[in-house]
C-alpha cells in the first residue's frame, strides 16, 4: 500500500477507502490498463469488434480503445439496460461488441437484458465488468459480491474471473475468438502482474495447476489466486505445502482437472474466491465433487453471506478473510483442526 498521509492532527489518513482503490500491493509489479491495450490489439485483427460503455469508459480502461478507434466506440450514457440491449442488436448485425460497466450494474441492474436479449438469443456479446467482488470500499452499492452466482445461472453464458494483467491480456483475444456470450470480471488501472512468472497460459474452460503441494489443494479464481500464491509462499516457510489450482473459467468449469486434483487423497480441499460463498466457484466445485462421489475435507474461503461494510480495502480484506494473512490463518487452523 502507499505510504500513510498524515492529517493536520498528525494521525495517518486511510486513503484506500476510495472507490478507485488499487488492489496492487506495495512494490508489486503492475501493468497499466491491460484490458484496454489488449482490446486495441484484438481490434486490429478483427474489424467487427466495437466497444460500448455506460458512462464508465475511463473506469473500465475502455478509453484506451475509444482513443484508438473513436468511430468504433459507442457512449451509451449511464443506462446499462439500453447498453446491453444495443450490444445484442449490434451482435445480431454481425459485430462483436465489448460492453463495459461495473460488475454490480451489469449483474444486478441489467440482469434481464443480459439474460433475455444476449444469452437467450445467443448473441456474441462480451460483457466486461470492473470492480469485481470486494475491490471497492464504497459498500454494497459498488461491491459485486453475487455476480458470479447470477451469471453462472444463465444457460450458455461463459463466466471468467481472471487473476492479473498477464491473464487479462490473454483472455481478451480468447473471448473475442470464442463464439457466444461471455461475462468477464475485470481488474483495471495499474493491474498486478503475477502469473507470467509461472509460465501460465490462459485457455477458456481450463483450470491449471500453478503450484503443486501435498497438504492443501486450493482451487481459486481471480484476485484470490494471487493472494493464495502469496499465502502459499509464506506457509512454505512453516513447512506447510500448498497446491494452487487456478480456475479462472467459472463456467464451463474444468471438471476433469478439478476432479483429478481433488481426487488425489490426503489433501484438504479449499476453494478461494473474491465472491460470496453462496453460488460461486466454491459451491460449483462442491456440487461437482458430490455428484462424482468425492468427499475430501472441504472448506471455502470467500465473502460472508451478508452486506459488507464500507471502508479501507486492506481492513475489509482482513475482516472478511481474503487478505494473504487471513488466508494463511484459515489454512493453518483447518490443517490443525
Amino acid at each position, binding site marked *: 500500500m502507499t505510504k500513510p498521509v498524515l492529517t493536520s492532527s498528525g494521525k495517518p489518513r486511510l486513503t484506500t477507502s476510495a472507490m478507485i482503490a488499487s488492489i496492487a500491493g506495495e512494490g508489486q509489479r503492475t501493468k497499466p490498463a491491460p484490458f484496454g491495450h489488449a482490446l486495441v490489439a484484438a481490434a486490429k485483427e478483427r474489424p467487427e469488434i466495437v466497444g460500448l460503455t455506460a458512462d464508465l469508459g475511463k473506469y473500465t480502461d475502455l478509453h484506451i480503445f475509444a482513443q484508438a478507434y473513436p468511430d468504433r466506440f459507442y457512449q451509451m450514457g449511464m443506462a446499462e439496460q439500453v447498453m446491453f440491449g*444495443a450490444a445484442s442488436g449490434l451482435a445480431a448485425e454481425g459485430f462483436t461488441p465489448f460492453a463495459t460497466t461495473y460488475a454490480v450494474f451489469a449483474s444486478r441492474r441489467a440482469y434481464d437484458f443480459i439474460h*433475455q436479449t444476449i444469452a437467450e*438469443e445467443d448473441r456474441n456479446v462480451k460483457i466486461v465488468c470492473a470492480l469485481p467482488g470486494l475491490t471497492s470500499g464504497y459498500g454494497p452499492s459498488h461491491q459485486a459480491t453475487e455476480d458470479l452466482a447470477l451469471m453462472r445461472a444463465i444457460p450458455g453464458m461463459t463466466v471468467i474471473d481472471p487473476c492479473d494483467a498477464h491473464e487479462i491480456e490473454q483472455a481478451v483475444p480468447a473471448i473475442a475468438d470464442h463464439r457466444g456470450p461471455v461475462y468477464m470480471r475485470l481488474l483495471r488501472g495499474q493491474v498486478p502482474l503475477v502469473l507470467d512468472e509461472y509460465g501460465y497460459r490462459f485457455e477458456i474452460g481450463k483450470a491449471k495447476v500453478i503450484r503443486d503441494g501435498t497438504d492443501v489443494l486450493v482451487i481459486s479464481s481471480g484476485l484470490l489466486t494471487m493472494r493464495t500464491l502469496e499465502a502459499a509462499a509464506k506457509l512454505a516457510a512453516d513447512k506447510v505445502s500448498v497446491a494452487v489450482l487456478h480456475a479462472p473459467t467459472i463456467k464451463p468449469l474444468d471438471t476433469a482437472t478439478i476432479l483429478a486434483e481433488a481426487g488425489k487423497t490426503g489433501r484438504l480441499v479449499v476453494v478461494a474466491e473474491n465472491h460470496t460463498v453462496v453460488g460461486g466457484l466454491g459451491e460449483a466445485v462442491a456440487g461437482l465433487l458430490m455428484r462424482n462421489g468425492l468427499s475430501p475435507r472441504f472448506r471455502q474461503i470467500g465473502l460472508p453471506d451478508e452486506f459488507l461494510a464500507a471502508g479501507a480495502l486492506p481492513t475489509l480484506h482482513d475482516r472478511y478473510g481474503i487478505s494473504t494473512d487471513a488466508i494463511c490463518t484459515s489454512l493453518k487452523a483447518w490443517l490443525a483442526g
Partner: protein
Amino acid sequence: MTASPGHNKELAERAYRIRRNAVLMGEVQGQGYIAQALDIADVLAVAYFHAMRYRPDDPDWEGRDRFLLSNGHYAIALYAALIEAGIIPAEELETYGGDESRLPMSGMAAYTPGMEMSGGSLGLGLSIAVGKAMGLKRKGSDSRVYVLFSDGELDEGSVWEAIMAAAHHKLDNIIAIVDVNNQQADGPSTQVMGFEPLVDRLEAFGWHTQRVDGNDLDAVVKAFDAARDHGEPKPRMIIADTLMGKGVPFLEAREKNHFIRVEAHEWKLALDALDAGRLG
C-alpha cells in the same frame, strides 16, 4: 408503392386476412391476445405489404428491413402477418402454441422465421433496435429497423433510455410504432401509469413524431411514408391509436379484453363478423 384506392383496397384485404389468421390461431388454443391482434392488424398490413423490404423465401436476407416485436405477447398477430407474407407456411397455423411448434404463444427469435428478437419480457425491443440501427449504419446498409411496442411498455424505464439513445446517436433508420390501445394487464394504460402527452414528450426527446388512427389504413400508409421520407437525422415514432378487438364488434365492446377467453361458439361468430366487415 404509394397510396392509391386500389392499393389501399389490397391492404384492407391483407388486414382482413391477418385478422382471420389470428382468430383461427386463437381458436386452436381457445384463448389468447386476440383483441390486440385485431387492433394491430392494419399496422401490420401496412408494414408487410406497403413499407417493408423482405424476401419470403429468405427471411434472413441481409438486405431486408428488420421488424422487431418488442411486445412478445403480440406474437399471434405477427405470426398472422408472417403467414400472410408467405414467410411461415399457412399449414403451420394449426400448430399455434402446441408442442414442438415454431409458433410459441410468446414471440421468440430462436423459434420462428422472421422473428428478429425474443420479446416476452417487456421493454427490451427499442434497446435492441438501437443496436441494430447502429449496426446497419456501420455496415453502410440502407435497411430500416421497424420496432413495434405497446403503450404499456412506456411504463418501463428502459424504453426511455432507448428513446434518449436513439436520438443522441441520430438513428434515423429506426421507425418505431407504439400501439396505443389503452389496455394493459391491470386495466386502462393511462390509469395504470400516465404517459400523455405522448407527442409532446417524444418530440421533446428529439423524435420525429406522428399520431394517427391506427385502424385507418389510409392514415397509417401516409404515416409510414412520412416517417420514411423525413429528412432530418432523427429517429421516427408513429403513435397508432387503435381499438381493441377491431373488426369484431362483440370483442370491441368487451370491457376486460387484455387477455380474452372466447367461448367455443364465439370463434365462428368472430369469423363471421370479420367476413361481414370485409364485404362492407
